[in-house]
């Protein structure tokens, strides 16, 4: 390759044979580097409001769903459900008590012994498929409900929550008549009545996540949604009615922590599945100890998202953003601790700072909203308190520069730098859109720091080198490790924690084992 290219001299404008003489072209501006190398994310071209127009039929009052019917609570009491984006009352929800739970458990027991427990897997599967299809048909309306009740952006409830709800019913519908293949050489038998207590971050998805495998395996269910997000579960109850699922197979008892306690203290419940805080998880574990109840817990997390210096940085930043700001950070597997290798630290911070400026916070029903409302005033206080403690301990704060709506519960996407491993913001689960950024020097150090937490639900690794991914994934003490991606879910993939993030797996063939007796 000896070809040498001679630098061409700037061409003298030769007169060219043209039909008519033309004048010299306009001179382009000379290239002058600008001094301030900043990107400007302003209002040059502002997106007009694009609210979702499908109407949601929210009723004034919701009752308990017991034995296939909507019934009033024993106490006669109701509590308000608030739209966190406006602080306005959305509807009233029945306050179930121990009496109601007992009715529900009895109905579930009857349904288990009378119909569901005896039904062939193939027939159970048919019901689950029917539920899945109905969820798909009503998905737009359910997405609007979910967004109004919980504050999450319609983009996420529409594109993530609802498709996953349907996927879980479809997936487990498929297992219903194939359980023998999931446990070769064993005879899987249903446990009986499953008590299920779910959180407020993915109300409908968590309901599907719990109900679908339980029903597929032949169990019946008493489900308690979170106090702040009961509406969508009750609409799901209607879908069970519409699908003709036998009475008592699914019972939904709304209420408070005491309602939940009545479920896990009930003597005739065979299995408890709980998703929520580690604090409550420990209480439940104590209550179930020695009772013979089977238990799975999916608790908190403080996941490490590790960016190595050979990572595809722009995509890593994308994964970091998805990891922590998805669903306002109300995600148990949120990548709330970012570990960046020192060599690329400055670049990653710079990119992250720019990236969060393009996140749009506001009306959750607007299709262009990326970050919705914090689920409750209580949760907002907790986030504020933790961020303040971080700042007091020396952390520097970076936030999306955006106006917060006057009413409702809002917290802008935030990340904290100058965080050390001993800071509270690096150890406690914030459950909000707040990221703590730390550094490391070598992959070994990243592993040590990532594992230095009582939690162990999930982790992320970003590198261009496959061998590093396998090496690190094997040593990270977390139930799920995402490589060059984050927050990816599939009903076929088991999900669950190490250490104080709980035990048991949900999803996949592994998730079925929590709902069958193999002895």
């Amino acid at each position, binding site marked *: 390759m000896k070809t040498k290219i001679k630098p061409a001299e700037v*061409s003298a404008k030769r007169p060219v044979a043209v039909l008519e003489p033309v004048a010299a072209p306009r001179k382009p501006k000379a290239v002058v580097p600008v001094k301030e190398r900043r990107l400007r994310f302003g209002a040059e071209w502002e997106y007009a409001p*694009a609210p979702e127009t499908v109407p949601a039929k929210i009723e004034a009052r919701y009752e308990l769903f017991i034995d296939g019917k909507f019934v009033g609570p024993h106490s006669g009491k109701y509590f308000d459900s608030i739209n966190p984006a406006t602080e306005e009352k959305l509807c009233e929800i029945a306050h179930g008590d121990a009496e109601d739970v007992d009715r529900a458990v009895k109905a579930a027991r009857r349904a288990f012994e009378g119909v569901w427990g005896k039904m062939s897997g193939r027939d159970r599967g048919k019901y689950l498929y029917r539920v899945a299809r109905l969820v798909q048909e009503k998905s737009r309306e359910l997405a609007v409900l979910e967004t109004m009740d919980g504050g999450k952006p319609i983009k996420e409830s529409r594109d993530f929550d609802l498709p996953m709800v349907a996927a879980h019913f479809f997936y487990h519908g498929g297992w219903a008549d194939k359980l023998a293949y999931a446990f070769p050489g064993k005879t899987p038998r249903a446990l009986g009545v499953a008590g299920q207590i779910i959180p407020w971050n993915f109300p409908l998805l968590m309901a599907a996540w719990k109900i679908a495998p339980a029903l597929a395996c032949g169990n019946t269910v008493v489900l308690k949604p979170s106090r702040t997000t009961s509406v969508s579960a009750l609409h799901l109850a209607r879908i069970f009615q519409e699908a003709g699922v036998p009475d008592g197979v699914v019972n939904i008892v709304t209420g408070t922590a005491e309602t939940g306690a009545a479920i896990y203290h009930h003597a005739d419940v065979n299995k408890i599945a709980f998703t929520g805080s580690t604090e409550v998880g420990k209480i439940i574990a104590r209550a179930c100890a020695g009772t013979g109840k089977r238990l799975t817990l999916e608790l908190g997390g403080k996941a490490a998202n590790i960016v190595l210096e050979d990572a595809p940085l722009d995509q890593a930043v994308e994964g970091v953003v998805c990891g922590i700001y998805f669903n306002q950070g109300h995600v148990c597997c949120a990548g709330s601790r970012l570990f960046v290798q020192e060599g690329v630290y400055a670049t990653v911070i710079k990119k992250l700072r720019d990236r969060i400026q393009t996140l749009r916070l506001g009306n959750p029903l607007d*299709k262009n909203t990326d970050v919705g409302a914090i689920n409750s005033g209580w949760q907002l206080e907790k986030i504020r308190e933790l961020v303040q403690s971080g700042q007091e301990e020396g952390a520097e704060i970076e936030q999306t520069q955006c106006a917060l709506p006057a009413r409702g519960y809002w917290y802008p996407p935030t990340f904290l730098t100058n965080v050390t491993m001993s800071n509270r913001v690096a150890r406690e689960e914030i459950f909000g859109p707040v990221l703590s950024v730390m550094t490391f020097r070598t992959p070994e150090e990243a592993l040590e720091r990532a594992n230095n937490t009582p939690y162990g639900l999930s982790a992320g690794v970003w590198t261009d080198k496959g061998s590093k991914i396998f090496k690190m994934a094997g040593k990270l003490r977390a139930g799920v490790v995402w490589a*060059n991606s984050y927050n990816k879910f599939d009903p076929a993939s088991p999900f669950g924690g190490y250490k104080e993030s709980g035990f048991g797996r949900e999803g996949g063939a592994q998730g079925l084992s929590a709902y069958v007796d193999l002895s």
Partner: protein
Amino acid sequence: MNATLSYPVRPGSIREAVPTVDQVTIEERAADFTKRSIKTSAKLAGLKMVVSMIDLTTLEGKDTPGRIAYLCRKALRPIEAKYEVPSCGAVCVYPNMVRYARRFLGDNSPVRVASVATGFPSGQYPLRTKLEETRRATGDGADEIDMVMDRGAFLAGDHGRVSDEIGAIKGACGEAHLKVILETGELVTYDNVRLASQLAMEAGADFIKTSTGKVQPAATLPVTLVMLEAIRDYFFATGVRIGMKPAGGIRTAKQSLAYLVMVKETLGDDWLTPELFRIGASTLLNDVLMQIVKTVEGNYQSADYFSLS
């Protein structure tokens, strides 16, 4: 430890100049931009901006002076004045047609004359003829030269040669703006696109452009995103704003708005100008006009109401 964490930014780091690109994540990110819902006032403003960014293109063997006249007039006045639609950014033609375009547009036209050059579309020609072609085009009045990168040399690993050639053409451009066509459909991987973008920008490109339109796939959202990210990192490193031109395959108003959203959310407002963002297209213009008229009038007009170029 706290004090040591505020490092100076070192955008010149070798590792960071040409980072790798993760295919799955960049494709997901690109798809995100199509989910923005652009309605009413934003749609109208966006579509008018798109018109001002279109390089209205004809690149056919059968191009004639008469055809160029149609194209130039359409670019100058895309639709009747009452819709307040700006002129297109440029007309893009073969070198032999440059003189006619110049004549029809006049000297102080808001519409620029862009010429493809350097053995378009393959680039498989001697440098000497490429230089001559470039000089002829600028001499005939081209404001902008759309050169094709030597993909053969790039894929053979001869990056120095690619770079030297771009530099030489830049020299021959004189005052004309240089757009370097990477022909991403032949580079295939995003890593290649990212590297080629960096080579082109360092060698003197004023714009980087995805495709000739003669190879499939032409412009796609993810490939354009890779190039926008390269432009952004080059800007941080040098303070120079390089322009971007996706070309080929952008046929609908909706697609073009997704590109605009991507530019706005990747490079920011400073790039929302025909000085720094163009779309190479021919059929796109009338679809955009149709949507503009629909947004203003409230109903769709038949295609017969929109003049051909």
